[in-house]
Structures are given as structure tokens and as C-alpha cells.
């Protein structure tokens, strides 16, 4: 049987058509095929959250979904969300609160934080911690990240 698959999808609003090996996961597809390297590859088994990508409006693990499964889907990555300005306030808050050190977890953290604020515009600190519990940070720690997300929640509600 054919181990390659033809896919057509949109990535950050741009139509994309490619023929890919079936085993290619979505995060490797956007990184290596489309050269969108903002989504990171960490553990490759769904634990770390560095590969978080948005598919049809919801965050997913980019390492636990095949590119073949994204045929027909709308995919958004950190590049798209940065470009369209929709998370500019989160990015600014992460910067100012020093919630970024090495930056490896940051794209995944930002996409996760944005989904939280869309689902729950008034999260408690506990809600924030729970929602980002699937995203590992190993540098400045979670305190600053929670602070930054909390600040943006307050600002958006002001």
C-alpha cells in the first residue's frame, strides 16, 4: 500500500498542497516542509506541550497528529498568531514579566494561554495553572507565566 498521502490544507490562512509520507507528524510537517520552526519538538510523546499547534480552532499536540490527518483542516501556528496580532498582548506580557527565558516552551504556552482566555475570560490563578499543566517550562518557572496570563486576562476584561 502507498505510504505517501496527498494533503491539502490551510496553514496560517495560506492554502498548502503537498505529498507527504503518512508517518510524518503535523509538527514535523510545519517545521521541515513549510519551514515554520516556531512550533518546537520536545518529547515526541505528548507530554511536554512544546509542539502545541491549533487545528480547526483548537490546540492539539503536533506530535500526536499526522499531517495526513490535517487534510482539509485549518492549521494555525505561532507564526500565524504572531503575524495577525491576536496574541500581541500575551506576547508583550510574557516579555515584560520575564516569562520567557530560553523560549523553547513559549510558543506552546502562548497558544495554550490563548485557548484558556477564549474559553474562560476570567480564570483564577488555579484555573491558569490547571490549563497550562500540559506544558512544561524548565527555565524561569511557572510563576511568571501565570502572572503574565493573569495580567492579560485582567487587561482584556478592563
Amino acid at each position, binding site marked *: *500500500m502507498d505510504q505517501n498521502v496527498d494533503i491539502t490544507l490551510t496553514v496560517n490562512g495560506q492554502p498548502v498542497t503537498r505529498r507527504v509520507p*503518512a508517518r510524518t507528524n503535523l509538527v514535523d510537517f510545519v517545521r521541515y516542509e513549510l519551514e515554520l520552526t516556531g512550533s518546537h519538538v520536545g518529547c*515526541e510523546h505528548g507530554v511536554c*506541550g512544546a509542539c502545541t499547534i491549533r487545528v480547526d480552532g*483548537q490546540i492539539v499536540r503536533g506530535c500526536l*497528529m*499526522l499531517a495526513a*490527518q490535517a487534510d482539509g483542516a485549518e492549521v494555525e501556528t505561532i507564526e500565524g498568531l504572531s503575524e495577525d496580532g491576536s496574541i500581541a498582548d500575551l506576547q508583550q506580557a510574557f516579555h515584560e514579566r520575564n516569562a520567557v527565558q530560553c523560549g523553547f516552551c513559549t510558543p506552546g504556552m502562548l497558544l495554550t494561554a490563548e485557548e484558556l482566555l477564549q474559553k474562560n475570560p476570567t480564570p483564577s490563578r488555579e484555573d491558569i495553572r490547571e490549563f497550562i499543566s500540559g*506544558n512544561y517550562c524548565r527555565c524561569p518557572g511557572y510563576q511568571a507565566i501565570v502572572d503574565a496570563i493573569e495580567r492579560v486576562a485582567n487587561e482584556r476584561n478592563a
Partner: protein
Amino acid sequence: MKPAPFAYVRAENLAQVFDLLDEHGDDARILAGGQSLMATLNMRLSAPEVLIDINHIDGLSDITNDGTTLRIGALARHSQVLESADVAKMAPLIAQAMPHVAHQAIRNRGTFGGSIAFADPAAELPAVSRAIDAKILLQSRNGTRSVAANDFYLGLFETAMQPDELLVGVEVPGIADGERTAFLELARRSGDYAIVGIGVQGRIDGGTFSDMRLVFLGAGDRPILASAAADVLNGNPHNDETVAAAQAALDADLDPMSDLNGPPEMKMHLARVLTKRALTALAA
């Protein structure tokens, strides 16, 4: 790591799935949410020749409630189940367990049926399915059969599902008036697999336990229904003595394996701690 090469088929209907299962047998794997399968493929713990993607088959993701029975389609996503008012009303134990099922990005993809079919002994939903007397619906070319959750889990990742069958849904009798539920687990990180967890459903009328069902996850080779502990509780008052007797009875119910989290003794200790907490929560 990256998966070994495989072919991929996006199935359009059940007949096609059954054809592919006939043709490829053990060399094929069903791809539902993929949140366990993809990890095992990436680590090359599994190397099928064909993946059969069932995500685009119509009619497998509905959650329906006829007032007596709740039916959850196999492809209902965890996030969909978590937010379902019907699930909260008819099967509150599922609703209480659901926030412990992984993290948002995984809940957005992972499926209810996939979790049941995979039968991870440390997962929440297989354990809960035993406490609430769920029926697992298995379909093949020959029709659909229903297997009680209590007969479904046969061993480590082993179920009563046959190679030519697909899990298409789960039916749950609506919770009876007066029944209470509690779900607790201990994990190193919120959303990770439990070290040990417990689900409880039953009655405390006039301070006395009845109809108690206690299930444990992470405490054996499959989800465990703790019948000895339930026998100790039923007909007895909710007090320290009864709770201590139920904790002691767990020796007859549980035989946890050593794993990365710790030795069997630690798991038994944690199971007893959780039992007391869950019974306290149930009475609250």
C-alpha cells in the same frame, strides 16, 4: 523518535473498516484520537503496516440521552464529554473524572471510545466504566454486541474486543436518584496518568452505606472493582471504624504491580488514603 513507515487510509464508513481489518488483520491499527497510539508509534513500541483512520466516519461522535440511558459515541472527544450537560446529569462520575484525563490539547483530540478500547489500567475512563455499569458496544460485519464493562477488561491492555470488531460507543444507565459519586486521583502532575486513583458510586442513606461500587486505577493490571471493600461498607454506618475496615479489605481486592511511580506497598498505602478521602467526599 519517529514512527516506522506505514500506510494510511482515511475510512469513509464502517464497511470499509471491516474490509481493511479482514485484509490486514494484526498488521492494521485503528486510529481514533491517536493520543496513545501516536506516542507508541513515535517510540516504535508498535509498528503497524496500515493505520485505519476512523475520524471521518459519520455518526460515531454523538452524545445522546433518552432520559434513561446515556450513549457516548466512540469518537466523542474528551473535551466534548467534559463540556456535555447530558454527561454531567446522567453520569456525574464521568464528569468528575474527566478533568483528570490528560491536558486540554490532548482532550481536544483524544476520544472516549479510544480510551476504553486501549484499556490502560492507569486511565480514568476504563475504571469509571466499571463503577457505573457501562455497556461497551462492539460492532463487526455480523452486527453489534454489547459487553458489560465488568466483563470487558481481561488483563493488561487486554479486552474482550475481537480482531474483527470496532468499538462504536458506550451506553451508561443514568444515575439513580440518591446515588452519590466521588472521583480522586494522585498524579505527579495534574493531567498525567494516575499513580493511583479511585472512583466511587453508591448511597449513604441515614448515614448507612448501600449499593457501593469502588473502582481503582493504577492499582493492578486492569481497572479493579473493589468488591471486598464494598461488602464491608454496605449496610454499615459511615464512621471511622467502617472506613478503616474498608481500607483493610483492600488487601483482598488489590494486587498492584511495581511501576516507575513506586512499589506495590506504596500503591496500597495510597489506595487506602484515597479510599478514606473518597468516602469523606461522598458523605459531604
